[in-house]
């Protein structure tokens, strides 16, 4: 029988403004679940709750407690003064330099491993943030509009790499983009 994570009757409000109201859903483990919804519908709030960064007002998260989590946030959240490689090494299971450099090259990050992140372009930073999440030790990978800002060709390469590296892992993936949806090929799509 397929194991799942459950979100049951989740409520969250800010200053008496409800953001999530009685949200219930099931996330199959080892598969990709996509979340699509218009802006302001509470996607980021849900993600923050699932990542343990916020507490819900009510509701139960079943199966999430002991999961090792990894994430790509809407923002890059990189240590700007550290090198690209140091940022990835910060969370990566493997500390092998040549392996990490080769992983960077597979998503088009050539000759930039020794550069401080603040010297890199927005697209490069985004890919480093994605790789940092993919190479970490995790059971649940949460991606909050991870490919935003990448050009279509790079996006395709990065999505292929993401799928390859996260095969068999539970992925929760927020997007508005039809191309991203089709390339990630989620097993279910949740609409908030």
């Amino acid at each position, binding site marked *: 029988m397929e194991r799942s994570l459950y979100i049951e009757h989740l409520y969250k409000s800010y200053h008496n403004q409800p953001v999530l109201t009685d949200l219930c859903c099931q996330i199959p483990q080892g598969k990709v679940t996509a979340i699509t919804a218009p802006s302001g519908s509470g996607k980021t709030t849900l993600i923050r709750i699932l*990542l*343990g*960064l916020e507490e819900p007002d009510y509701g139960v998260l079943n199966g999430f407690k002991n999961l*090792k*989590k*990894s*994430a790509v*946030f809407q*923002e890059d*959240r990189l*240590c*700007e*003064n*550290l*090198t690209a*490689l*140091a940022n990835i*090494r*910060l*969370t990566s299971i493997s500390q092998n*330099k040549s392996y990490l450099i080769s992983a960077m090259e597979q998503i088009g990050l050539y000759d930039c*491993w*020794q550069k*401080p992140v603040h010297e890199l372009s927005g697209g490069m930073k985004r890919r480093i943030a994605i790789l940092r999440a993919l190479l*970490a030790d995790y059971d649940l990978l949460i991606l909050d509009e991870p490919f935003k800002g990448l050009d279509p060709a790079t996006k395709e390469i990065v999505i292929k790499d993401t799928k390859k590296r996260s095969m068999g892992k539970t992925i929760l993936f927020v997007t508005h983009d039809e191309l991203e949806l089709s390339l990630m090929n989620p097993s279910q799509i949740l609409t908030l």
Partner: protein
Amino acid sequence: MISTTNNNQSNQHLNIPFQIKPWAVFLWLAIWQIASQWIGEPILLVSPIMVIKRLFELILTSSFWYSILFSLSRIATGFFCGVLTGSLLAVLSYRYKYILELLTPLILITKTIPVASFIILVLIWVSSKNLSILISFIMVLPIIYTNVFSGIASTDKELLEMAQVFSLSSWKKIRYIYLSQILPFFQSACSLSLGLCWKAGIAAEVIGIPADSIGEKLYNAKIYIDTADLFAWTIVIIIISIFFEKLISTLLNLLVERLERIS
């Protein structure tokens, strides 16, 4: 809280506008020479040539070097103790609100009380020999405390959330997130407090007159109206102060480089 920096480029903005140009130095020396010749009374205004002559005479004496060692070791001790204590108290204040509340009045008072009041008060408690240690410490502590606290408080919350999600160890959080944010504030505080602790430390020695200190030499210069000595020792203080500041700033720059270029 007042801080002396609020961004990562603090070093650059501190260094660029205050470069000493040789032509400006020579112009001021020329003005000084002309003024002393015009006055014609070395007691009122000694000429730069006489000061340099006196300086070379002093350099050849062992008491000159002993005085430098005496004052430098004490002021530097006060400085390093102030840096360590200020940083530690800033961390504790950030961690525990009641420590912050407890220290805030003390820090504000330390900042506003005139140095002279401190020196006279401290002279009652400690021997004049160690006076400059305590005065330098008192000068450095609030500056380091305030700046390090501001640095910690301004740490990027989003990076801290990232660290929480990826379950980064406390060591990694301190090393890669906090230190990176605090160091510009710390560098700026060190640069500011170094100048202050030298001035205050020497002033303390002039009032306390510990034997064989630079302060004692300045005091004697005043008593014997030896303007050449007074100027020569002042130049020595300036040179040591600049050297000490450059040394600390070079060490800090190396530390920052080492911390930020890990790969």
